[in-house]
């Protein structure tokens, strides 16, 4: 497994559980890339019926099991999500969206405007209504990745950090034989690319095109508070922003409390490469939107902000499964902003494929070779 983020950790966990000999190698630290910059969203609410929702529903079940196995340290909270609409037209759009999801197995309950405050007492007045999604949940992503890796190591997996993979070794038939790092050679008949936003680089080492691009996001962290926000709360605009292919700056806040106390305010989106510069516009817009949804937050201080790079693929679906172009190379990247949520299903499907089992979900929509070479 190349990559010690949550996806690599989940792949290692399920592969080790299936009895495979596993090594995880990362040029940085555990959860040092996108995982450590996430909010830990385990969402089904923002996904339209289709392959990503199927993946999210499978993952929601797996996270529930994992939370019991990994223990309270991963801060798993099955808190549910609340999506709110500011206009009647927005509420109608939510209604249509939820009807489609219901057919795919998502539980969604319409919340009329007058009952919104029973769910979230601090919500702004005057909203048109919303939907409650009890299957949405949350984990602390860095802890979740670390504890998945710890569990994998207990089953025999090896963890190597601070060591960059510099080459993919292939035999005369083209099949993968392992990787070379700056310090050693790791022989393996299968290599999993779980390098997230940097997935295109590892694919290029194998000579294949996988157009993963970074989509930057900022998250604001408030001062520690008591529970002022009970669910994951976001505006209906968020779904449209996630689905958009635009490179320009988009903000639609997702607001949630944490067991640690601070409220997290996400999620801006923009494609400007691996640029770590602070964007005052992005954080200003996020703060303003959060204060519009929860006026009480206008008086609360933001202590800090952090940014990360979502691994974006042009059709918003991850690449999961063996790459038909390079036997033995398995792709497990490109989950965009949903990687924490989708990690367990990804790990399970990869482990099933690695052990010759029939994967629980059809992997065709996630084929790594679906993007035409440039």
């Amino acid at each position, binding site marked *: 497994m190349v990559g010690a983020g949550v996806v690599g950790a989940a792949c290692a966990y399920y592969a080790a559980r299936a009895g495979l000999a596993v090594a995880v190698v990362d040029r940085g630290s555990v959860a040092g890339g996108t995982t450590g910059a996430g909010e830990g969203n385990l969402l089904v609410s923002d996904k339209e019926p289709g392959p990503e929702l199927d993946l999210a529903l499978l993952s929601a079940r797996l996270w529930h099991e994992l939370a019991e196995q990994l223990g309270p340290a991963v801060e798993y909270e099955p808190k549910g999500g609340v999506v709110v609409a500011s206009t009647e037209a927005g509420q109608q759009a939510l209604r249509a969206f939820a009807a489609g999801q219901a057919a795919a197995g998502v539980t969604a309950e319409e919340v009329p405007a007058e009952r919104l405050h029973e769910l*979230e*007492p*601090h919500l702004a007045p005057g909203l048109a209504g919303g939907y409650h999604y009890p299957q949405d949940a949350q984990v602390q992503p860095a802890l979740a990745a670390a504890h998945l890796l710890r569990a994998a190591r207990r089953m025999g997996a090896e963890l190597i950090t601070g060591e960059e993979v510099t080459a993919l070794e292939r035999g005369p038939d083209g099949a993968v034989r392992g990787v070379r790092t700056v310090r050693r050679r790791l022989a393996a008949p299968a290599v999993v690319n779980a390098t997230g936003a940097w997935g295109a680089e590892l694919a290029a080492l194998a000579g294949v095109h996988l157009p993963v691009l970074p989509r930057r996001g900022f998250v604001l962290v408030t*001062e*520690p*508070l*008591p*529970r*002022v926000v*009970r669910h994951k709360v976001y505006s209906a605009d968020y779904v449209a922003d996630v689905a958009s292919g635009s490179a320009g700056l988009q903000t639609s806040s997702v607001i949630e409390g944490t067991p640690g*106390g601070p409220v997290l305010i996400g999620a801006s989106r923009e494609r400007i490469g691996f640029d770590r510069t602070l964007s005052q516009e992005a954080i200003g817009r996020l703060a303003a939107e959060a204060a519009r949804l929860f006026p*009480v937050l206008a008086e*609360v*201080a933001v*202590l800090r902000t952090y940014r990360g790079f979502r691994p974006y693929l042009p059709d918003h679906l991850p690449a999961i499964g063996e790459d038909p172009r390079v036997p033995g190379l398995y792709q497990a990247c490109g989950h965009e902003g949903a990687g924490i949520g989708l990690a367990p299903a990804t790990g399970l499907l990869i482990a099933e494929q690695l052990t010759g089992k029939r994967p629980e979900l059809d992997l065709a929509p996630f084929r790594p070779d679906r993007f035409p070479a440039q």
Partner: protein
Amino acid sequence: MEQPVTRRRTPAGLVGAEPGPGHHIEFDGRSVRALPGQSIAAALWADGVLAWRTTRTGGRPRGAFCGIGSCFDCLATVDGRANQRLCLLPAEPGTVVTTQEGHGRADLAV
């Protein structure tokens, strides 16, 4: 005449400061002397007060740690506003500081 050692080693003594006349702030209902330009944290330290907040989970004492606004350890309630960094706020005449319990925002809990 030579100054006593303890006096000489105060920050003001070390830099040869000649502050203007002092004034007072209030800390948990009592008067604390402050100098012009002093931060609230410095005024409390000069008065021998080292802790003005208790932690959220263990109720343990906290005061100034980094002293430069980065660590958010020195929070207290100032003039009714919770979570103010005392190392950054000037000790203005009449400022009212109260020890903060935990996040200091219990009124917002739902």
